């Protein structure tokens, strides 16, 4: 249904041209892949080198001697403060922070997008514009008043507080994604369901959610990446014990006057990114599957 790849057939007479095009295509994709992989290459090779080798050799070269010491250190030995337990203790903080925050903001975005795209009422577009513009507020600006608000609400320094902040500033984007997806679904579907007697939530649940897999995946990718990698909110609205992994990563990496261990830094960065990478690999699959399963045609 959504199978729209344009080169469906190959004429024997045009085989050569087709083949050449195909090669060009792969070459291009390969070049892009190299471009995207370059920093990863640097990071991985560096993380496998010893500090000694980094100090003396070229920074962008294969390791002469591979050692996984840096990885071990990053995970469980690097100092992030007076504790030297690596990223491990912070990992869980990030997980229990990111999962509810992503879930809540995605659900809110889905339902907001559904209202704005399919239940248009006067002013809906204005509200949407306000939400969109809200995406542009610099987070540095909101830090201080937000801190005050969190204090007033009594959730300062707690994980629920952080979740709250991420949800608030995630809504704009999640709403945007869903609204733009739902806008292209024919209005007749809602009409048919209304006549069938389904109410607002029923239509959303039974008809729109099943259609939304691709956009849910896009939204989750975005939100998860944003929240998992967020440092500013994490550092400002946490306290000892609730700091997310980025703060720990930052503590490992960012020291001004201490000795720099690039191999550990790189390993830590890659470890900290593993959950997001995992989300991409897993979700990416559903992303395409969702698209091929539910076409938006009746």
């Amino acid at each position, binding site marked *: *249904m959504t199978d729209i790849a344009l080169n469906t057939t190959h004429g024997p007479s045009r085989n050569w041209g087709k083949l050449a095009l195909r090669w060009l295509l792969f070459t291009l994709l390969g070049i892009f892949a190299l471009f995207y992989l370059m920093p990863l290459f640097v990071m991985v090779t560096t993380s496998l080198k010893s500090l000694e080798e980094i100090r003396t050799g070229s920074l962008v070269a294969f390791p002469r001697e591979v050692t996984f010491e840096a990885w071990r250190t990053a995970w469980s030995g690097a100092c992030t403060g007076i504790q030297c337990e690596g990223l491990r203790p912070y990992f869980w903080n990030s997980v229990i922070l990111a999962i509810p925050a992503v879930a809540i903001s995605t659900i809110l975005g889905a339902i907001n997008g559904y209202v704005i795209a399919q239940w248009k009422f006067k002013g809906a577009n204005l509200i949407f514009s306000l939400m969109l513009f809200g995406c542009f507020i610099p987070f540095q600006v909101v830090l201080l008043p937000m801190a005050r608000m969190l204090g007033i609400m009594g959730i300062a320094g707690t994980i629920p507080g952080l979740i709250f902040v991420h949800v608030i500033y995630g809504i704009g984007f999640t709403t945007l994604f869903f609204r733009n997806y739902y806008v292209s679904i*024919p209005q*007749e*579907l809602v*009409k*048919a*369901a*209304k*006549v*069938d*007697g*389904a*109410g607002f939530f*029923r239509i959303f649940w*039974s*008809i729109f959610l*099943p*259609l939304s897999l691709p956009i849910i995946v896009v939204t989750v990718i975005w939100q998860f990446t944003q929240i998992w990698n967020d440092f500013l909110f994490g550092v400002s609205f946490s306290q000892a014990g609730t700091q997310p992994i980025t703060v720990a990563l930052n503590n490992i990496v960012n020291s001004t006057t201490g000795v720099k261990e690039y191999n550990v830094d790189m390993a830590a960065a890659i470890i900290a990114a593993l959950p997001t990478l995992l989300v991409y690999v897993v979700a990416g699959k559903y992303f395409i599957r969702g698209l091929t*399963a*539910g*076409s*938006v*045609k*009746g």
Partner: protein
Amino acid sequence: MAPILDIKNLYKNYGSVEILKDINVAIEPGDFLVLVGPSGCGKSTLLNCIAGLEPITSGSIDIGGRNMTEVSPKDRDIAMVFQSYALYPTMSVAKNITFGMKVRGVDQATQDQKLQEVAQQLQIEQLLHRRPGQLSGGQRQRVAMGRALVRDPKLFLFDEPLSNLDAKLRVEMRTEIKKLHQNLNASMVYVTHDQIEAMTLATKIVVLKGGVVQQIGSPAEIYNRPANLFVADFMGSPAMNLIPARATKNGAGTQIEITREGAEPLVLTDTHAHDLPEDVILGLRPEDIAEAGFRAGEDVQTADCMIEMVEPAGADTFVVSHLGGKQVTARLHAETSALPGKNLSLAFDLGKVSYFAPDNGERLN
């Protein structure tokens, strides 16, 4: 009895464009109302308004004696089949059909039973597990029908529900709908562009043009006594012959004179018509012009006409002649001896004639 559907002074605009203008229609319980009109005249829009899916600009809609103008679609107790099917893309055919029941809390056993029933009626039993994307056009349309048929609403709304079906299936479906109508004594509003559907199903037909009601009446009224030139021309296929003529009083009746090219004017006498203006447009359906000898009756008058074209069409043969500067079609038997370029004696049934004013197109008799 209170009308089941009562539309009063309904106006509907899209932006600044008036799509529906001052619609007034009422139907009694058990009525089968068919909406016809040229493409784009506002039929689907009117159905949408009745269903509450499009806000109306002004006027009121009562369903079952209750003012429903502001009521949401799901509380209007209607079932509707959409012209564009509007199937739920992620649900199987079976779920598409049972969704409405499920929402209304019908128990599973009843759901299954109704589903089987309807699937059989519509001949889609073997498709129940498929997704809409895997169906052919006609199959989709039948699923859309199924979604309405499992319900038992006050009012059914059908928007060209059979347009994608083959003739045979269409006849069967038409019969199913007719049965449904009779068995449930259900009330229906039905859009179609198929004249036969309109004629055989309707108890009442509304002819729309450009958002304005042209005529409301029984199929026979519409067919036999079209209210104006538009209706006359629109209903019936091939269309009614509309021939400019001169009417002059002649004793008890009226003498009708029709010019012909390269021949004497054709003169007929209508004994029923009175008080016609001098210029009229005479309307006569092709089947009311027969081969002489095949039609008898007191109002039948024969005349020789030059045949220009002979078109065999299965059971009938259409012949075309030229009268009053217009092509005139007659419907003859398949075995007619008519030959193009030859004269043929045609019988005109003046008992069936309609007269229209050339200026405003209104019916005169």
